């Protein structure tokens, strides 16, 4: 469920970054306020534990295929929402940097989908309500399954929304939802079962760990409302600015540059930069308007309407061929440069 950068638009990516950053700031403040410095190594080591646990696969009952623990709900049960969110977020950072499991720009989305939902929604609103203060084994199992399913459903829906809003994938919304939700229903049930099994084991062997974790976390919706609010504010702020860029002008970045450089009219392709480059090209190229010679030939020998389509087709072909050649060329230049730099490095 980790999202990659390749499917993300900058607007969605940065908006979610802003939201995740606000949640991190809020959770950090909370954790610091709790003043229990035993938490510091505990959070770190439990994060590493989740990392290790995710690498051990188990057999999913009745299917024969294998799955692994997600761990978001388990961490929240053991650490409480704030510390758990920070821990999940830190695991995601390491996964994205070292294993390309989720992108760097997509970190905000992933922290939200995989961290926010289990820690701030599924745990306090579902798990705590079902498990209660004096949890029995059965209530804990039931709570864990329902909470895990709910958390993963929300997370999966988050993935769908973020992907569709980014518009890089052509998958229609309905198809995507129809694909993601049922899969994550199954995954959620398994995740809940596994979480319950692990919690039950620890509860039997070291009851004070689970009990202590439960006791130290106040139940209540007040902090939730606050965090939801700050989260929304941050998302709206960052997302708003970026998408305003995007809506004012199809190319927000271009628009921003134009504002900075002071150009007045900036339709795509008419930046001063473009003019400069176009001039250069005109000086070098033989037939500047067309990328390929046959484009001109078609143009000359045809009627107006036919000529238009012909020219259109030819220039399209020209553009794509020129683009393709240029792409290879730029790749070659990049690697030659790299090679030279490396050689120089080794000689030096």
């Amino acid at each position: 469920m980790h999202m990659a950068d390749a499917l993300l638009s900058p607007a969605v990516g940065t908006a979610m970054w802003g939201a995740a950053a606000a949640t991190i700031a809020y959770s950090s403040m909370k954790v610091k306020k709790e003043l229990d410095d035993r938490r510091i190594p505990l959070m770190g080591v439990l994060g590493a534990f989740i990392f290790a646990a995710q690498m051990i696969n188990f057999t999913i009952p009745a299917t024969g295929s294998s799955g692994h623990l997600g761990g978001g709900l388990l961490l929240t049960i053991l650490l409480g929402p704030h510390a758990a969110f920070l821990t999940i977020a830190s695991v995601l950072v390491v996964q994205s940097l070292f294993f390309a499991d989720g992108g760097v720009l997509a970190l905000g989305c992933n922290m939200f989908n995989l961290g926010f939902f289990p820690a701030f929604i599924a745990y306090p609103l579902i798990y705590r309500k079902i498990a209660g203060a004096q949890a029995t084994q059965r209530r804990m199992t039931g709570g864990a399954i329902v909470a895990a399913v709910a958390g993963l459903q929300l997370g999966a829906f988050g993935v769908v929304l973020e992907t569709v809003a980014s518009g890089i994938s052509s998958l229609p919304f309905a198809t995507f939802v129809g694909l993601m939700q049922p899969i994550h229903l199954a995954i959620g049930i398994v995740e809940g079962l596994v979480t319950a099994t692990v919690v039950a084991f620890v509860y039997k062997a070291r009851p004070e760990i689970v009990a202590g974790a439960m006791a130290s976390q106040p139940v209540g919706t007040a902090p939730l409302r606050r965090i939801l609010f700050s989260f929304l504010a941050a998302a709206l702020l960052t997302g708003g600015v970026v998408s305003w860029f995007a809506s004012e002008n199809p190319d927000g970045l271009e628009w921003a540059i134009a504002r900075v450089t002071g150009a007045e009219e900036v339709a795509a392709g008419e930046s001063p930069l473009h003019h400069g480059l176009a001039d250069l090209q005109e000086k070098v190229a033989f037939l500047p308007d067309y990328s390929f010679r046959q484009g001109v030939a078609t143009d000359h020998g045809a009627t107006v309407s036919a000529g238009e389509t012909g020219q259109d087709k030819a220039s399209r072909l020209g553009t794509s061929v020129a683009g393709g050649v240029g792409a290879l060329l730029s790749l070659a230049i990049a690697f030659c440069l790299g090679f030279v730099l490396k050689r120089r490095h080794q000689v030096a």
Partner: protein
Amino acid sequence: MRAIDGAVADLKRLDLLATGDSVMHRLDARAKVLTTLVFIISVVSFGRYEFTALFPFFIYPVVAASLANLPGGYLIKKIAMVIPFAFVVGMLNPLFDRQPMAQLGPLAVSGGWISCASIIVRAVLTVGAAFILVGMTGFLSVCQALERLGTPKPFTVQLLFLYRYIFVLTEEGARASRARELRSCGRKGLGLSSFGSLIGHLLIRTWLRAERIHMAMLARGFTGEFHSGQLTRFGARELFFVLGWSALFVILRLENAASFMGRLLAGLLT
């Protein structure tokens, strides 16, 4: 358990690269983090059907990796591993988007295929940039940079602790899992209940370890504050690095350099 051992070995390898000494390694980590972010945002800011314009962006990862003297083969292998995933993700595009967009000789290429190819190139670029950032900076310095760029301290401390104990705990997890595998007499798979107790044991041991670490911290006078050791400076070199690359990314974003060069070449040939 080859999976765990492999992942740890991989982590260690990437981590060791960061101990190198080069122009790139010596730069302040903040400059590299910021440049990487600008790079990724520039790359993903292209429209869905942009394909060729992405290629000039290869100049950054290639130049950075060369200057940092990172092993090219290893990086390419590591980056290549994400291509199948990107392809699976992008594969759906040709199914839903059949509008012809370009002509390649006699072949009409649909928009779906172009956007699929675009997704793959994006994936390679963004993932490559992230690996190269870690390879030439190191996780510790990335964390320090994040902290100096305003990330709250509890989170950066969490990142450092997590990273430190990944090595210890994955080894512990691998041991436990190997022990189970050896006793399972060739039966494949790990049932839910034995998984529960295996992971549960690991969790309890982890908890006890956290208590011992806390003890070790207290024994050395821990009062809730972390002090940082040596810090690098964000100087003119760093400023130049960030601004220079960012300017290039913006130019490459605004101007399809690949198509420009292609036309240039075509012009020269005719």
